[in-house]
């Protein structure tokens, strides 16, 4: 029963959604709409599950004093601080009836003063690592690497004045070699061809995995109960 009922639900929902896609009329259109709403409700519960899991992992790490446990402590304190600030509406003008994100609230203060600059800082660090990596790894060691290098070089030059002045003087018949034109071509022809190939491959993979799930061939999502 533990396996049969989830497999039956998966089969019925999967088939119903496929039918709803090709027959967008009653009762399948209503079915599709309701399934979307169910999905959204389940997605909300995923937050509780995610939060619970995060706490479980980090509390265990602190208890065992595992590697870098102090960072886990910061995570737990941060989690409860932001959750408390939002749920209890600390500092919100107008009290319980006010917006938890209103100016003056602790939640807004934490978001603007800690979360925003920290996230921006983490992302900004990429610039340094990209520069360092491009210096050490972007080398014309093989023919393929050289093609990649030249393409990256042109794309990087595109927004710069150097990219414009290097090639703007080219005569009309050779204007396709002008860096901005060349970079547009790279993005809209070879890049698009590659992206399309990847997308078609992914789509075929999704179709085959979905069929395996619907037909009950793929059972790993059932956990250990799905074995056998």
């Amino acid at each position, binding site marked *: 029963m533990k396996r049969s009922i989830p497999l039956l639900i998966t089969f019925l929902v999967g088939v119903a959604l496929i039918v709803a896609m090709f027959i967008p009329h009653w009762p399948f*259109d209503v079915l*599709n*709409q309701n399934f*979307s*709403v169910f*999905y*959204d409700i389940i*997605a*909300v519960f*995923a*937050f509780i599950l995610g939060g619970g899991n995060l706490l479980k992992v980090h509390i265990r790490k602190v208890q065992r004093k595992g590697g870098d446990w102090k960072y886990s402590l910061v995570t737990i304190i941060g989690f409860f601080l932001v959750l408390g600030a939002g749920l209890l509406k600390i500092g919100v003008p107008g009290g319980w009836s006010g*917006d938890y*994100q209103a100016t003056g609230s602790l939640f807004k203060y934490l*978001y603007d003063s800690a*979360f*925003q*600059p920290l*996230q*921006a800082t*983490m*992302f900004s660090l990429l*610039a*340094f690592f*990209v*520069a*360092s990596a*491009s*210096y*050490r790894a*972007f*080398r*014309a*060691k093989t023919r393929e690497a050289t093609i990649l*290098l030249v393409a*990256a*070089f042109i794309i*990087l*030059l*595109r*927004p*710069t*004045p*150097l990219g414009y002045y290097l090639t703007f003087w080219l005569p009309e018949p050779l204007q396709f070699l002008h860096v*901005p034109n060349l970079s*547009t071509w790279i*993005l*809209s022809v070879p*890049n*698009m061809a590659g*992206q*399309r190939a990847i*997308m078609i491959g992914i789509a075929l993979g999704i179709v085959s995995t979905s069929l395996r799930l619907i037909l009950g061939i793929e059972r790993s999502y059932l956990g250990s109960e799905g074995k056998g």
Partner: protein
Amino acid sequence: MAEANTGSTWFERLGALDRRVIFLLIALAVIIPLVVHYTTTIPASRIVLDLYEAVENLPSGSKVLISFDYGPSTAPENQPMATAFTRHCLEKGHKIYLIALWATGPRQSQQLIDEVIKVEFPDKVYGEDYIHLGYKAGNQGLINALLSDFNSMYTSDLAGEDIEGFPMMEGIGTLKDFDIILAIGSGFPGTKEWVQFAGDPGDIPVGGGTTAVMAPLLYPYYPKQMLGFLGGLQGAAEYEAALMNGYPKYRTMTRRASTTMGPQVTAHLVIVGFILIGNLTYLMERRKKRKY
């Protein structure tokens, strides 16, 4: 470092350049243009102009859905896009509906309301010209649900007010009632999901903007499934340039993307320089190895 440099040739020393030197040069390449206010104006490319013209050609009063599917980490790239779209839509007299597929999105849209709409368009009325609907969980499932019934998913605005009380919500039943969707994103779910789950099945015009890293992934959708899109900060700067040409008052106003393009341009040049040096030292080393 000192040991490695002993007795080595100049290109070997250059090849083993301490990465702290690279970090320092990148930091300077970003800081100096910011200090000296180095800005650069980039003419709008076809892909950006197509989107600009689509927004421009909509009749005044059109309903524009703007989705904020990003957070503070990519705000320097995405927020100028939101600003440019909002300025353009409100100049044209369109009605804008702000929503988010990301939990961090509403703070970005609130920032837009506080810093752009309330400051530059004080005559625009909340609930009549713009509305902040906030975030809902569900990713692409939410888009799918909105496509069949918008009002059952969004029953109130961000502040908890019933949406039926807002005049601009009249006539909104599904996503198909919007004239255009402008999806600003930096990952999943984002612009791509708006094309796949709203634009294609609902036959709704979709445009938007993504971070530069994500932009190449959207090219397969242009021009048939997407009107156009802004690729990174450069795309935002191009849209600002188009807006400046159409509405000259923006020549003297803050153009965040054009301002921050200065540091990006110099950083790109520094990276190009490093790639050149890296390859030069590599070729010299290879030549030396072949010689001996």
